[in-house]
């Protein structure tokens, strides 16, 4: 087992801020970022923003996103460190911020992301060309490959994916910032035509606009701030090769990320109160449930059909509605939700007594895996 260099209470999340998610015609991503950062500063009770000495942002493959230096200028501050990741989805960017805190490079780091790409609420996200010769396009293809294989091997079906969307909508109805709050039935889902068979339109995230910010701090600083800190206990990560490996699209790299994050946190799936899955498609949820060990291999369909992942279930998944319903900020909003759930601030969608939250994600064409565990004070 690898030891993680930082201990479980070294890195605290002390503030979160989010804008409404959905369409923001004509609004610059920097306006959305500023709104989210101001909300996070107020949430943390940090009045003097010059205390921020780290600014981490992200850009995406489509060029959307924000620049950390420009955001700092906008805030009128000069942090010790500014940085961003290309393809900086939520978990990877927050790990970057956490490493700055854990190693003592920074005291207070703002991690922020905002974007306003064209086609909000309409266009499929994940536009990319993997092979122009044969028309292999859009990141959702990885999910379609995976679910075709899963159905053939384990006898699962498309209704499982439908139940994921139906569940996400149930939660989103309790989330005032969510883009898609209207309810949906399994019949309505199944009546939709295929887009990339076996996926329908509702299985694939749409582009949305919005902003989100998290503020991280060293634990001794965190204790003097307004809210009870939430701690980033551990992160696990794994890179996998391309399709040269067998079962690439069944996301076996998750198993390595799972072993790392549970090992470093000294936990197992049984310790997780609420699970946040970066759901660029519905397929991410059953594959996470199996590969992380929340259920047996091939058993996610029954697990999901039992209602376990929904409101009042044994393992609520994405109580904010996920990217499929709340809005697609590439995993960043899941981190805001983890903090709010662990503080007990989520109102109707609050998971009762949530003390431990886990985040999981896959990246690129099933080539990066990451999971982190957040714990209440």
């Amino acid at each position, binding site marked *: 087992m690898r030891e993680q260099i930082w201990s479980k209470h070294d890195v605290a999340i002390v503030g979160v801020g989010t804008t409404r998610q959905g369409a923001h015609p004509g609004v610059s991503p920097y306006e959305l970022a500023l709104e989210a950062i101001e909300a996070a500063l107020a949430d943390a009770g940090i009045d003097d923003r010059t205390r921020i000495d780290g600014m981490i942002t992200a850009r995406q493959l489509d060029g959307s996103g924000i620049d950390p230096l420009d955001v700092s200028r906008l805030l009128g501050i000069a942090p010790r460190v500014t940085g961003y990741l290309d393809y900086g989805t939520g978990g990877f960017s927050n790990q970057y911020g956490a490493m700055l805190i854990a190693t003592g490079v920074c005291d207070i780091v703002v991690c922020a992301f905002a974007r306003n790409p064209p086609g909000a609420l309409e266009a499929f996200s994940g536009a990319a060309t993997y092979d122009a010769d044969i028309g*292999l396009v*859009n990141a959702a293809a990885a999910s379609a490959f995976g679910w*075709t294989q899963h159905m053939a*091997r384990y006898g699962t079906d498309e209704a499982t994916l439908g139940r994921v969307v139906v569940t996400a909508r149930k939660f989103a109805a309790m989330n005032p910032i969510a883009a898609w709050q209207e309810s949906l039935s399994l019949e309505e889902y199944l009546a939709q035509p295929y*887009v*990339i068979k076996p996926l329908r339109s509702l299985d694939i995230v749409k582009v949305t606009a919005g902003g989100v910010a998290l503020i991280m701090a060293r634990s001794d600083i965190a204790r003097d701030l307004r809210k009870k800190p939430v701690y980033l206990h551990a992160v696990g990560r794994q890179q996998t090769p391309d*399709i*040269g490996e067998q079962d690439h699209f069944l996301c076996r790299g998750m198993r390595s990320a799972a072993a790392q994050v549970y090992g470093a946190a000294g936990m197992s799936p049984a310790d997780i109160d609420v699970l946040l899955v970066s759901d660029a498609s519905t397929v991410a949820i059953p594959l996470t449930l199996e590969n992380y060990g929340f259920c047996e291999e091939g058993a996610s369909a029954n697990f999901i059909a039992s209602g376990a992942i929904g409101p009042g279930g044994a393992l609520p998944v994405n109580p904010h509605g996920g990217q499929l319903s709340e809005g697609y900020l590439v995993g960043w909003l899941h981190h805001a939700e983890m903090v709010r759930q662990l503080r007990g601030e989520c109102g109707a969608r609050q998971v009762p007594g949530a003390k431990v939250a886990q985040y999981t994600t896959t990246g690129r064409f099933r080539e990066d895996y990451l999971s982190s565990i957040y714990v209440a004070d």
Partner: protein
Amino acid sequence: MADVLYDKESDEAFRAYLSKGEIRLQCCSDCKGFRYPPRFACPHCLSRKWHWEKVSGEGVIETYLWYCQPVDPRFADVPYNVAVVRLAEGPAIYANITDAVLDDLKIGQPVWANIETRNGRPRLSFVRENPS
């Protein structure tokens, strides 16, 4: 595919063989491992020495999908499929199975390489019916 790995010269050589009716993959001259898509170094042993080796053209469908609506305006001729074909020699390759209609594909199904010309360029696809 990261552009830095894409070996245009080798890709063109691969297509030149296709236009002669031959399917050849890069084969490491040291460890004899096959690789696809073309790259300048062997991913197994990092050797830069390699040659073009004829392959059987036989493969098995590992997984597949069907584009039923155009998600990209360049590929509006739907439905069409893309499969992950595991070649008998080891490498996996993304390809269209050109003699299948919707719902006609199965995981584990054997497929055979087929050389066709599209947009004036030779390309590799696969078919379900053994052409020989």
